[in-house]
């Protein structure tokens, strides 16, 4: 199978701090991979690097066939990144935000609204300004934007955090559907029981590198 992510000895600096210190990882297309490890071992940086957001200091990195050391731009429209930060304009409503981000990618408004509906954002909630949302609703809005993108590669940083029980079930269901449709999913989580039931494989992070690769 084609490789969705192919990292060899990747070093990524955040300022002067080597957040990734020689990470080697391989993820095939269609796989669902869990990133595991305590805080500060490089999981978030790994996800952001896959999205083409971090400059690579040394090593080789290919994501969805794009060489990130040469050009980090082309891969970006094919990934969906859900980070700790939700990438939402506080002053705009949920609906405005979803519509705006969808239209920045040329996604039809009906598809965007369907995605919002899919994560449980319906009715009057769409007209609420994002700054009045609870943390969980905020995450859902961010998730709706990712769903609307229909990415080939999902990069999710602790997607379960802040969601209620129902929301987590809903998310897991969503991930399964996406994986069935052929998308690759890489996510970091501390909800190990839940996450391991979804994941095909686990990458264990430690000290800015991938320590173990458990099937």
């Amino acid at each position: 199978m084609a490789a969705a992510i192919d990292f060899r000895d990747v070093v990524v600096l955040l300022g002067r701090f080597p957040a990734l210190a020689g990470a080697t990882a391989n993820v095939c297309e269609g796989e669902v991979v869990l990133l595991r490890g305590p805080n500060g071992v490089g999981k978030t940086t790994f996800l952001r690097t896959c999205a083409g957001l971090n400059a690579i200091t040394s090593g080789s990195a290919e994501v969805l066939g794009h060489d990130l050391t040469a050009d980090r731009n082309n891969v970006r429209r094919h990934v969906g990144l859900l980070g700790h930060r939700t990438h939402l304009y506080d002053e705009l409503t949920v609906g405005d935000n979803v519509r705006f981000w969808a239209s920045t990618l040329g996604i039809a408004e009906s598809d965007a609204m369907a995605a919002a509906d899919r994560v449980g954002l319906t009715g009057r909630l769409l007209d609420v300004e994002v700054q009045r949302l609870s943390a969980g609703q905020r995450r859902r809005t961010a998730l709706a934007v990712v769903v609307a993108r229909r990415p080939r590669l999902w990069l999710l940083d602790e997607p379960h955090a802040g969601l209620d029980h129902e929301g987590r079930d809903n998310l897991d269901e969503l991930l399964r559907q996406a994986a069935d449709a052929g998308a690759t999913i890489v996510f970091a989580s501390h909800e190990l029981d839940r996450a391991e039931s979804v994941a095909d494989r686990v990458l264990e992070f430690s000290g800015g590198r991938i320590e173990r690769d458990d099937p």
Partner: protein
Amino acid sequence: MVSATKPEMPVSPRTSARMATSSVGTTVLGWLAFVSLVATAVLGLVVSPRDVVTGDAVRFLYLHVPVIWVAYGAFISCAIASALFLWKGKSRADRGRHLDRVAGASAEVGVVFTALALITGAMWGRITWGVYWQWDARLTMTAMMFVSFLGYLALRRLPTEPSVRSKRAAIAALVSSVNLPLVHFSVDWWRTLHQEASLSVDEAEITGNMYSVLLFSSVAFVLTGIWLVAHRYRVIRLEEIRDDEGLELAIAARRAEAGVD
């Protein structure tokens, strides 16, 4: 002033060569600059005659004019290095670090010399025109250049990633450079109170002897400027080497974290 002191700590011969900020070339250059500056002082203060119109004030000329030339030269060098950095930096083996250092070192020297030029100019102006400041195009542009490049240096000092910082600084330097003619033109249009560019006007008053002193002192200040830029360049490079060595340690330390648990 030109010390060829070797670092005290024990280092291998290969690294010691790149650890010092002086080389044979710049040592010679430094002495030349120093001697010519002393000679300029003697020529300007003792040998050169008083001017018929401006009296002893004319001696400011030997300081003020060369200093502003060095300042302009330094900013031009900064702008060219910045342009090359943006244009060619990515394809070069050193990712344009060399050009970035040239730009930074030039701008620093340029700011210092502009400050000197503004101070000496104000003193000279007070004596010859009776005011410290004239709102003419050249003065206003120089003041704006001074402030712009202060901002440029502030931008260079920001604690961001080196590559990001270099790129933003290079763009800022270029935008400022593109803008300076606009400043000059608009102020020129607004009001031109006093004389044209100094040499052409003062030529009438400056006679043979003074002219050669001015020329000599220009050489002295240009040498000093180049010497300063070369040393600043090397200090910046040493700082980068220190940071890079710190980086190797940081990566090793980061990997060692893995062994802890």
